[in-house]
């Protein structure tokens, strides 16, 4: 049972990472245009160098 000392914190940490990632996606407006995003992935116009 000693392994629980590692497993529980690890599982909480991994879940927490997911939660933080989700918070980040919400905060950076990534759900504002779901339709557009699903289409934009097909566009071959890349913006590696955004307009200054």
């Amino acid at each position, binding site marked *: *049972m000693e392994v*629980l000392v590692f497993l*529980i914190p690890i*599982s*909480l940490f991994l*879940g*927490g*990472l*997911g*939660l*933080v*990632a*989700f*918070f*980040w*996606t*919400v905060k*950076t*407006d*990534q*759900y*504002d*245009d*779901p*339709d*557009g*995003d699903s*289409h*934009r*992935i*097909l*566009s071959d*116009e890349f*913006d*590696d160098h*955004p*307009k200054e």
Partner: protein
Amino acid sequence: MSDSTYSEAPSASACPACDVTPMARRLAASGALDDLPERGALMLSLPGVHCALCITTVERALEAHPGVNSARVNLTLRRATVEAAPDVTAEALIETVNGVGYEAHELDPSALSATVTDRQGRELLMRLAVAGFAAMNVMLLSVAVWSGAADATRDLFHWISAAIAIPAIAFSGQPFFRNAWAALKHGRLNMDVPITLAILLALGTSLYETAHSGEHAYFDAAISLTFFLLAGRYLDHRTRAIARSAAEELAALEVARADLLTEAGEETVDVSTLAPGDRIRVRAGGRMPVDGVIAEGTSELDRSLLTGETLPVFAEPGRVVSAGEVNLTGPLVVEVTAAGKDSSLHRMADLVAMAETTRNRYTSLADKAAGLYAPGVHILSLVAGLGWYVYTGDARLAINIAAAVLIITCPCALGLAVPAVTTAASGRLFKKGMLIKSGTALERLAEIDTVVFDKTGTLTLGAPELEAAETHAPADLSLAAGLAQASSHPLSKALREAAEQAGIAPALVESLVEVPGYGTEGLWQGRRVRLGRASWVGAEAGVQTSAWLAVDGGEPIAFRFADRMRPGAEEAVAGLRDAGLSVALISGDAAPAVHAFAARLGIEDVMAEALPEEKAARVAALSAEGRHVLMIGDGLNDTAALAAAHASISPATALDAARVASDIVLLGEDIGAVPAAVTTARSAVTRIKENFTIATVYNFIAVPIAIAGWATPLAAALAMSASSITVSLNSLRLK
């Protein structure tokens, strides 16, 4: 942009520091644009965009426009936000977008308050995510306890569960706590009171049990209850936010500007800044923004949005005009007599507000159920707790049982099932081009038994069509079409279209001039020809909308026009009748036109030349007979009737006041989907009632178990999840 953000998501959380710079850059490049139009940002509505190519084409075209900093298309909202130098006008951008083959309209960013709703939605989503995360983790630990963890291990798991659940609920449960507190402060009970009590009692007893190495802790039940209920709240919020943003977009399409005449010349100003005494210019085709008196110019006015009359009215200096009338032919200078809050449009809106309060008294099914549920659950749990205390004298056991009763009677059916059904129904109707604005609209629509239509602009398009085109001599039609070329009057357009359809080329007419308010004249084969009003060409005016053609010295020839029927009008009337509803037509238009139109659609219950008050009175009389009326109309003259009816629908082309007064807005031109809306509404109400039945049956089984004291945390979790999932699945069976 998004293709790169998604792939980078994991790295962002694994090493937040490394991502700060690109994130900031990305925010600067795009994020801020999507959020709120900054000062100087222009918004365009793009109804035609639908694919990846559309996005790139429009964005590329806009970004190539001189002065444009950046442009971003939002495909979900069908909008483009453009950040540009102050001298770039919306008209120029619209032209650019039209140039690459897409329709575009200017939106008034001040009419779009999407950010506020957005913030609420975001807040709910965060709370939902936290509750979901905590529920999953606590549930994992609980499974271990249920499968036999004992003694120290069980206590440890309970403590970890508490450490996760308590902060998670403190954050996620806030909307419930706030609402419950607000209700209690006013001495009322609402749904959030039993929810809050159940959550807090469950947390309290579980903490006590954990501290005393007790066997049962309800941390999992408390957090999953929060999660399910938040899911319901979020669905509800989404539905409303979508409807609100679409309704706001309709309002934002009417950019309220007027051309003010000043000593320095002409100036485009905001309508709200106009004051009585100002002089404004109203171009041909423009809508009167204010009430006023014509100071200069002659023209014809289309008053159909205000009165339902299809016959244009002659306008000359001295004539009083009301906001909402459309100027048809020549430019007019109007002296403002009343603007903004005092104008007739706003007075009508006050009338609507009064009628609305009667409708707001409608109690939704969810409210009715909550009214029974909230006190019932409190009494039940109190009785169970007191009973056990009297019977055993053990306060700890009694409180445990009271908490179990509160948790097991989880109001998930109320909190989740109703939003799930309305979300599914609204989504379905939105796809058919209908926008549900009011929360109780579906329930009211399901109850209707009588449908009252307005004619002009509702069953018709408000655009004229030449009647019996084949009876006219080709030479006459050709000459009329030739004369009509000089004018953009709706009747002239209809004549040109009729000639084109018949394959007749317009005759060559020389020195064509349009005399605003009267008609057009010119020289044809050396003879003076005129097309226009009866009095102008020397003919007797009739009751029907007509244009007269006169060749110098000859007998005037009449071209009669009928209002063009809206696509789907026949299907709508037939479909509603098949659904067992009685159909009536009330119009402000002249009797012969109304009766002829009603005969085409087979409507027998007809009322013509109705004044706005008479329309509302007729709807009120039908309601007094115990009927539930659905009013479908578009004009200012329908507004009071729309507000007085049990449920109401208006087309998107309707006046703002009419759209505000109605529950459902038809977004497309086709009206044929109305019977489908009634079917969907009826089906939705059936589903809601079924969900209540399912929830009640669950409670009939689970509550005695809880009261008997046999409820374990496992049983509570099973009952709650099973009832939530069943009602959600049942909602999806919507027709």
